């Protein structure tokens, strides 16, 4: 088998763009240390030099506030900021740039919809349908909206292997269901949910759909227009961009009918002592100075992802996930959370018999392997699975099969530590 067929992406060349991936950890006097294996990409990804440089360039050459000054730098900054919006719109298939709202992260995007659309449209007895596999960011804002409006939050159950019970969907989708909020990819199980089908069936029942795409946009092709999504949220830092910038996509007629979420500068057409008139999209939902440089950095990240190709990224991650399942199965005593590799993204969560997730993470760290341990902001899901914590290895296109194999060897060593007798 040649390297080309094993890793179709030129991962070695890609890794040269990410200086942090060459880190050597735990080097002490007389020891060489261990190379970092960064397998915590569902929490946040690393960023390549090109993204960092794009932000340095703005600060050193083009930076001023946007949409404000009648001066050269402000024009430069505004052009770069709006260019980034255009890149995001094209990346997710939005019909227009005005439907792409810059927020500070996916969490804020969901809260924006829950506050603005939720408070204006939900009333007592209405139902919001979530799923048992949602991240807290797609649960709590709806619980808060329910508390304000008298609406009821319901949860579509999952199967034991971590897939949605779509055979029960119609039962949960009632005439009172106003909104379905669902993750395109589960941040714990890795399950790729059939969002297109969910949207079509929800629409047929008269409900809108909010898609939490934080774990899907960085890894698979997203086309909001083909999906017919009403709202879709994601974050920049999970796709090579900086923290502090996220996106809310929404259908134009929905966004235009929604009251502004936060008040302040930028989001108004005019203000008088007796009131205000909100601005057009997208400024309507962008009160205050936006995350200018992070947004431009996100634009550069999308440029980088486009040069790799989102389909090649997905293929590579599927390969790593398959290897992970093989290697971890061979360890013995591993319980996978979530379905087989064919049905999921590059996320492999598991428990190891007799060893707590935090002990696994701590011992893996000694081998230079970074994973997440805990409930991953999905406590209802862990309760459903009958556990309190799990370990999660999550991949991106710069990870190698060798790193995944190291994970397997390290787990074997951990098993030995805890089964001495």
């Amino acid at each position, binding site marked *: 088998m040649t390297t080309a067929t094993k890793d179709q992406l030129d991962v070695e060349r890609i890794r040269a763009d990410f200086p942090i991936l060459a880190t050597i950890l735990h080097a002490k006097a007389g020891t060489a240390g261990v190379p970092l294996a960064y397998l915590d990409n569902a929490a946040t990804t690393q960023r390549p030099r090109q993204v960092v440089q794009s932000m340095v360039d703005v600060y050193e050459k083009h930076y001023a506030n946007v949409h404000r000054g009648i001066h050269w730098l402000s024009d430069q900054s505004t052009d770069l900021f709006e260019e980034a919006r255009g890149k995001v719109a094209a990346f997710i298939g939005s019909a227009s740039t005005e439907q792409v709202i810059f927020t500070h992260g996916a969490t804020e995007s969901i809260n924006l919809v829950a506050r603005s659309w939720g408070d204006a449209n939900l009333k007592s007895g209405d139902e919001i349908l979530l799923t048992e596999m949602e991240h807290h960011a797609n649960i709590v804002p709806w619980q808060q909206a329910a508390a304000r409006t008298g609406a009821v939050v319901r949860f579509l159950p999952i199967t034991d292997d971590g897939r949605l019970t779509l055979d029960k969907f119609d039962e949960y989708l009632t005439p009172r269901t106003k909104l379905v909020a669902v993750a395109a990819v589960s941040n714990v199980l890795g399950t790729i949910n059939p969002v297109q089908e969910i949207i079509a069936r929800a629409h047929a029942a008269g409900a809108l759909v909010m898609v939490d795409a934080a774990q899907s946009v960085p890894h698979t092709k997203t086309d909001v227009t083909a999906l017919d999504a009403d709202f879709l949220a994601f974050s920049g830092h999970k796709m090579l961009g900086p923290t502090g910038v996220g996106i809310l996509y929404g259908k134009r007629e929905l966004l235009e009918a929604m009251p502004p979420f936060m008040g302040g500068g930028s989001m108004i057409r005019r203000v008088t002592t007796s009131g205000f008139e909100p601005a057009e999209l997208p400024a309507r939902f962008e009160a205050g100075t936006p995350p200018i440089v992070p947004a431009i950095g996100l634009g550069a990240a999308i440029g980088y992802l486009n040069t790799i190709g989102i389909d090649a990224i997905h293929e590579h991650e599927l390969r790593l996930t398959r290897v992970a399942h093989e290697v971890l199965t061979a360890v013995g005593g591993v319980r996978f959370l979530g379905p087989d590799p064919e049905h999921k993204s590059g996320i492999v969560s598991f428990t190891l018999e007799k*060893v*707590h997730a*935090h*002990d696994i993470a701590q*011992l893996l760290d000694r081998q230079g392997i970074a994973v997440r341990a*805990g*409930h991953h902001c999905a406590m209802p899901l862990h309760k459903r699975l009958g556990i*309190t914590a799990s370990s999660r290895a999550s991949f991106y296109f710069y990870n190698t099969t060798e790193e995944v194999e190291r994970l397997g060897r390290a787990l074997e060593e951990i098993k030995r530590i*805890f089964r001495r007798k």
Partner: protein
Amino acid sequence: MTGVPFRTEPILTVLSQHALPVAMPLEEDELYQERILDYYEEPYHRGACPGATHAHEEDNPLCGDVVRVELAIDDGKICDAYFSGDGCCISQASASMLIEQICGRRLDEVTAFTGADMLRLFGAKLTPNRQKCCLLCWRALQAAIYSPIAVGPVETESGEKPAGGSHDNCH
């Protein structure tokens, strides 16, 4: 059966029986040392406390660790102590060590046992996050002393003491 005498050796001396040689620096490397794994895999008094008079449960919602402490307190003394719970090696091994340490102690000794003492008893160096795991049982214990449970000592002590009653169970 009469109660065991009060334990009179200074608290923390139990540690010396297990402690590593002083010359060996207690670094994070020793976190999963034999002594700690022993306490984790063969815990001291894990389970329900017969004749419990006081109990408290503490959890750490960030990681899901839970420790419940049950005590049989009589005449200003912890006559028996047990723990139960679920969590990482640090949280469960530290609970095992602490229960062994405080069983048979006077309450004033136990209340004087500080969080810093607990970290010292545990022995291995811990990052601030893992210190929370180590202190979970200590927090549960300190609260349990002030948390009498519904079935009081009067009922338990009327009539014959059950096997493994409120005395002579700390060793």
